[in-house]
């Protein structure tokens, strides 16, 4: 039976190899800073219901551009298959979605040797839901062409699991070198906010938009849209400039949310002008709870568990057991190395 399985998986791995050729265009190393670019796989274990599958797709989009957007997975693929492919492709992180009776579960793992953070998804909203809730959803074409920024807030506590979470999420996106980065490439931001009281992590994904400050809304729109303004109700052309606009003029740009640009960002946002930073959510939205940290990749020593200490508590769901089998043999022997690796990553 096992042999049968293997032969089948080989058949499947083929398309991934093709994908690898495609992705080889993407550099493994940032050519300016020389840092290693983290890459990720987002996949699922076990059968997911429709909304969760959508969430998986949203997460893939969020992880763009250094992820496999069209990663194909089969039921018979075990974690080892992904691991085997991850090595040559330079994939450094796995985001694994699975489902239990109680709630969906997101696991964030570093390859090839862990650690693995297990989050329980208390609530989630898809990007579609969020777009539907908005009056004017915004999606510029090159929104997903650059990696997002990441903002972690509230993780200041000295707990080790929080520090580990911080490190994990910091390293999941490419580093930004403030000397060379182009501000126009900063289009998205991922926010992780830890709430001390509830111990929940709010996961949000926003698009960044800059608007010139000190210009009336009308003129801004005129410059942005290139449309002939409606002058019917005005006495004179000068009214168009001097008369205050309506409505949203009141949402005064707070001083805190303005930046002064040094270089031209776009046609409207020129150098040495003040621009307001506006964020609009693009989703997905998740409320996570850190439940477990394992030393290895979905296995190994349990370093932290929300439900009591030690690994006595096994999560419901049969796929957990399967994966344990999958990677037990690979991870048992280098558990000691894991510890060192982790310490290294924390120092970084």
């Amino acid at each position, binding site marked *: 039976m096992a042999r049968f399985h293997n032969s089948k998986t080989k058949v499947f791995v083929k398309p991934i190899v093709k994908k690898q050729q495609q992705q080889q265009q993407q550099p493994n190393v940032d050519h300016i800073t020389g840092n290693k670019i983290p890459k990720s796989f987002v996949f699922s274990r076990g059968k997911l219901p429709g909304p969760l599958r959508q969430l998986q797709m949203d997460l893939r989009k969020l992880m763009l551009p250094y992820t496999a957007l069209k990663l194909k997975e089969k039921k018979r693929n075990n974690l080892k298959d992904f691991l085997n492919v991850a090595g040559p492709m330079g994939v450094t992180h796995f985001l694994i979605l699975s489902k239990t009776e109680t709630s969906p579960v997101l696991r964030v793992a570093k390859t090839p040797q862990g650690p693995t953070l297990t989050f329980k998804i208390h609530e989630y909203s898809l990007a579609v*839901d969020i777009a539907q809730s908005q009056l004017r959803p915004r999606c510029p074409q090159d929104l997903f062409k650059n990696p997002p920024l990441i903002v972690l807030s509230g993780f200041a506590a000295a707990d080790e699991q929080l520090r580990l979470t911080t490190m994990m999420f910091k390293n999941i996106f490419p580093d930004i070198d403030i000397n060379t980065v182009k501000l126009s490439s900063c289009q998205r931001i991922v926010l992780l906010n830890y709430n001390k009281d509830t111990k929940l992590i709010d996961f949000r994904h926003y698009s960044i938009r800059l608007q010139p400050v000190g210009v009336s809304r009308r003129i801004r729109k005129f410059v942005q849209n290139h449309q002939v303004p409606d002058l019917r109700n005005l006495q004179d052309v000068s009214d168009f400039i001097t008369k205050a606009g309506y409505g949203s003029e009141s949402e005064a740009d707070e001083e805190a949310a303005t930046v002064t640009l040094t270089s031209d960002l776009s046609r409207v946002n020129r150098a040495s002008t003040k621009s307001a930073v506006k964020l609009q959510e693009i989703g997905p939205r998740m409320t996570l709870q850190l439940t477990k940290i394992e030393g290895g990749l979905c296995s190994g020593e349990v370093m932290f568990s929300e439900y009591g200490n030690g690994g006595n508590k096994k999560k419901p769901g049969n796929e957990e057991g399967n994966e344990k089998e999958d990677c037990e043999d690979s991870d048992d022997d280098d558990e000691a190395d894991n510890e060192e690796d982790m310490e290294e990553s924390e120092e970084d």
Partner: protein
Amino acid sequence: MVMEEGSTAVGKRKRNMGKKKVKKPKNKKLKMLEGKGKKLRVSKKMRNLFEKRARQYNSDDDEEEREEGEEALGDTRIGRGGDNSSEESDGSEEVEIQPGVMKFTDGVRAFRLAFKNIIKRNVADDSLGPVLSGHKQLVAKKLAEEEAERKVKGEAKKEKHLVAEKGHVKPANYLGSHEKFLIGIATKGVVKLFNAVNKAQKAEKGLDPSRSKDAKGFIAFCYTIPFILLSFWQALLEIVGDLLKLSGNTSSDPRNEEEPAWAPLRDNYMLTNPKLKNWDKTAEAGIADDAGRMSGDSGSDD
């Protein structure tokens, strides 16, 4: 007319053979019979019979035809039930002589027996019989059962859907206080980063002259230097020429003089082009004209 009718039914072996005068109803019957007894061979006896009939038909006219036909067939008939009122039946019976075809009377009796049997049969009340109106309760029961089944199924489906949707929350249309708070945090982060980037890149710019605007201006200025020099050179040549003229040493033919090989250094550079000749004068004149039109005292300009 007869022949025509026959021709319409080409391929009907019996009729061609018999060349009868055939009325439509008879025709029908024959067709039917033919379909029924295709497998049967036409026996010699039959053939004789048909020939005989054909002869009779040909000799007689239409009215007599049927009666004679009946008479002729009279001996072959076995117990006409008397119930067959139509004359078409004779055609059928004449063929029913063939072996293997049930006689009409037998068929009637068998049918009667079968029908009686069905009528006599006593159907039990409890099972769904042929008469549905008698089983209202049963039908209702069945329907109710189905309904319940569907309900259970629907509930199971709903439950499954609920499990699938677990944790899935549709966001509100407005920004809640928590969302605003989160956006505030994110904005703060972005502003911090942008400011840091700007600070870093500004410092970089200050060090690197090629990037600043002044540098650009300088480069542009550098590009204009050759032209400035050229115009300066031309002006110099002009002055020298004037001086030469003034001193009276004007040469009879300037072309004999040694002229520079490079065109821009020649006196008449660009002046050979008629368009460019007097370019400054025409422009001035135009301005003067405008000025003159606008205000009367244009003399000061000239």
